[in-house]
């Protein structure tokens, strides 16, 4: 598993797998890019993708369904100033490639055919092995893994009435060549395990959920790892059996480590994406150098963490990913850029140009977004709160980039009374204002954790895998939306 192939070897292998197989030669790429580089076009690129995915789902103690999918094609893009022409084809054939190029270049008036720079292979990182994860476990063993966790979870607690577990893997091979000379390939394995349980006690019913994964083969899911997910799903469901209505109104909120970092993703991350800031539609527009958080807060977007779900060796424009500082000791430092927005803002790409597939255009997107650890022990943080809420786990979140208002939904939370955890509270949404919420961070834990590898980020209809993380945080005022009334 440690056989990491050199990037050049990887590029050669991908070229043969994607292009040779389709009968596409170098001169065809040059012709396609040449057709795109007409008139005032600044930049053009071709994005080839071949991917295979599978999923196995268990319900009622049996594997009910296995599914397999093939997705492949080429996306073709021409950019002139702020204009983008885009077309794609799910046929990897020379005529389809040239037809797509002609369609995409219609964004500019016809002009002289442009010049394409000679390609130089761009070396990316080696953050994960360039493997196909699908055959890293036999199909018999995949089925056995699901059946074993089903019986283990049911044995954990007699109140477990339903278990749905799934195992999935994707093998994505991408090749980018651009008119600026960038040529890069990436082989991206991704595996994922999910489990959800329903527990019943009397007439009460609750759901619990857990899962994880990353850019590995299936061997990542050891029996112990899978059982840990199972225990976590049962624990969450059982906690909520005793939940009381959440309070409503503004109060002190302590957020747990790890996945609650979805706060940063919503409140900060999206608002710092280059496209919104170039257009001036983000609540963070023009605020570089200003204080947007308390000085305890340093937030980064890091696409270079080995094997993480949100990591990439190169982004979908062929730029190596980076560790970008977004907020340093409370001061806003940087935006997340793709090539087009970087060019228009007079800066360089931060390796955040991502796309869902060949059939979608790249945009600035997050990779793994997290806050660095601070000085406080998590127990000390909870003990500091006289009356408030401790939110340990979350569902999803959402943000309005322009107004800066964001929400996220707690799925496991507790009252804090006089520095001690009290009763669990029912699902509640928390709402806040992105540009001001981090100014209210008064304590930051020394327990930085990243999520287990479950994040999916949606933007303008495109989904990409991401990671989040944070240490325990104390926020001195966030509005919580329960039915249990305001505190006197």
């Amino acid at each position, binding site marked *: 598993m440690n056989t990491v192939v050199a990037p050049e070897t990887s590029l050669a292998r991908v070229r043969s797998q994607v292009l040779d197989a389709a009968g596409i030669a170098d001169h065809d790429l040059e012709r396609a890019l040449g057709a795109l580089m007409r008139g005032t076009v600044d930049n053009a690129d071709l994005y080839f993708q071949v991917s295979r995915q599978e999923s196995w789902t268990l319900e009622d103690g049996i594997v009910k369904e296995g599914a397999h999918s093939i997705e492949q094609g080429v996306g073709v893009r021409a950019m002139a100033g702020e204009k983008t022409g885009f077309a794609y084809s799910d046929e990897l054939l020379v005529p389809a490639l040239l037809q797509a190029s002609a369609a995409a270049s219609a964004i500019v008036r016809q002009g002289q055919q442009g010049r394409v720079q000679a390609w130089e292979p761009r070396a990316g990182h080696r953050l994960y092995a360039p493997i196909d994860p699908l055959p890293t476990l036999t199909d018999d063993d995949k089925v056995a893994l699901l059946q074993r966790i089903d019986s283990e979870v049911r044995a954990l607690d007699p109140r477990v009435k339903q278990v749905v577990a799934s195992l999935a893997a994707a093998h994505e091979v991408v090749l980018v060549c651009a008119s600026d000379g960038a040529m890069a390939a990436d082989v991206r394995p991704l595996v994922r395990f999910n489990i959800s349980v329903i527990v019943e006690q009397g007439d009460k019913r609750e759901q619990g959920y857990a899962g994880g994964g990353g850019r590995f083969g299936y061997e990542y899911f050891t029996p112990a790892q899978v059982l840990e997910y199972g225990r976590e799903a049962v624990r969450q469901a059982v906690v909520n059996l005793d939940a009381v209505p959440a309070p409503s109104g503004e109060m002190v909120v302590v957020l747990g480590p790890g996945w609650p970092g979805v706060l940063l993703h919503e409140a900060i991350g999206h608002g710092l994406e280059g496209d919104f800031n170039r257009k001036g539609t983000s609540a963070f527009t023009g605020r570089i150098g200003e204080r947007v958080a308390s000085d305890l807060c340093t937030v980064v977007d890091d696409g270079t963490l080995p094997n993480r779900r949100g990591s990439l060796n190169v982004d979908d424009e062929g730029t190596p990913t980076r560790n970008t500082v977004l907020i340093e000791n409370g001061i806003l430092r940087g935006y997340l850029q793709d090539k087009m927005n970087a060019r228009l803002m007079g800066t360089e790409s931060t390796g955040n140009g991502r796309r869902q597939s060949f059939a979608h255009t790249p945009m600035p997107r997050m990779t793994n977004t997290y806050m660095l650890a601070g000085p406080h022990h998590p127990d000390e943080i909870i003990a500091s709160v006289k009356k408030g809420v401790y939110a340990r786990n979350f569902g999803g979140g959402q943000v309005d980039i322009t*107004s800066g208002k964001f929400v996220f939904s707690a799925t496991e939370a507790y009252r804090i009374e006089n520095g001690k955890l009290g009763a669990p509270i029912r699902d509640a949404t928390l709402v806040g204002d992105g540009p001001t919420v981090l100014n209210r961070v008064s304590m930051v834990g020394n327990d930085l954790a990243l999520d287990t590898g479950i994040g999916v980020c949606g933007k303008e209809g495109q989904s990409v895998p991401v990671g989040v993380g944070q240490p325990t945080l104390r926020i001195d005022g966030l509005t919580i939306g329960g039915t249990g009334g305001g505190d006197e």
Partner: protein
Amino acid sequence: MSTRTALSLQNGAATLQDKVNDVLRLAQQLGASQAEANANFGTGFSVNVRLREVETLSHQRDQGLSITVWLGHRKGSASTSDLRPEAIEESVRKACALARYGAEDPASGLADVDRLAKSIPELSLYHPWAIDPAAAIDLATTCEAAALDFDPRVTNSEGASVSTSESLRVYGNSHGFRGSYPESDHSISCSVVAAEDGAMETDYEYAVARAAADLPSPAEIGAEAGRRTVARLGGTKLETCTAPVLFPARVARGLIGHLLSAISGGALYRKSSFLVDALGKPVFASRVTIDEQPHLLKALASAPFDNEGVATSERRLVDAGVLGGYLLGSYYARKLGMQSTGNSGGAHNLVVHSTGETFADLLKTMHRGLVIADLMGSGVNPVTGDYSRGASGFWVENGQIQHPVTEITIAGNLKDMFLGIQGIGTDVDRRGAVLTGSILLEQMAIGGS
């Protein structure tokens, strides 16, 4: 332009039929006892104009094939966007291989023969739009201009878009069923930004229709986007309180959407629904009646048959508050000891009957409370019905809108919310699978400062 695309769709129909037949033949050769295939092909384009300049022109051409096979009652599935014979063969073989690992499940299989559609009604879903990108850019420019010019406080824009698409779907199964129909979807949308006192707000308006002639004018859509955006400026937080809440039609569609998830076969069978065992019981206030009308001409969620070839038909889903049926495909219908309702793939036009009041009437009835502009987040627990979401909107006193409010939450339980419906407006929003007017709820918990 239109003749060319229409022709390619027609050619597509014949080609897709052949691919479906190939799949079914191959599956049989490989020993499958049952098989089905769904093939689709679509083309179209979209343009976006921002600050009066073209921003993107994007061409779309999609194709795909999904295959399910059964070996006895063991099921395997595969899908591919590569429709070359070798990729199709690989996919069928893969589906058969996966089925070998599945467990025997007597409920698993094709829909029962007697439920399959025997005729395919013409639902007027295909109206190609004879428009080229240059003309679409002109429409988008007009639309955005109406928004930018609506008010001086409209200072920025995410742009206006015009898109058109045509698609064709072919479904076939080893019971001998073959069904196919073309569809079209056209849309115009606009999103702008307004600023005042250093704060920005954004909102949008859109229209979508099967036929371009049924779209409102681009200028109307743009002006409405401008009006909605400016109205949100100057929002303040509310004091935490309990009050009636009015969901305007576009937001009310989502409220009824929670009913659809709760009465779908999978959720009921897994008991991950707050409406388990609710059939025949009152789940709404008695003034609420909801029909499913799959054959409404030109409607966005109309379909002659569902994803398994089962005939769709009109029915009453909620009668004077009492739940009269579920949304079932064959598998979960068998699991629940019931019959498919033709809902494999979802609901087909849920029509919520109005109680006769206009939006202004509902405001008067509410007297004092909250009108929702926008909801955020996914804070709905499907198992318990607990509901808690971020919101922005308008505060109402004496039946009149007073001022915008923002950064608040609304919370309740869907069971109580459904039973507490006070009125359903005549202002029906037809832009999705749920067709409803504005809905007034008796009361919810509002979280603010």
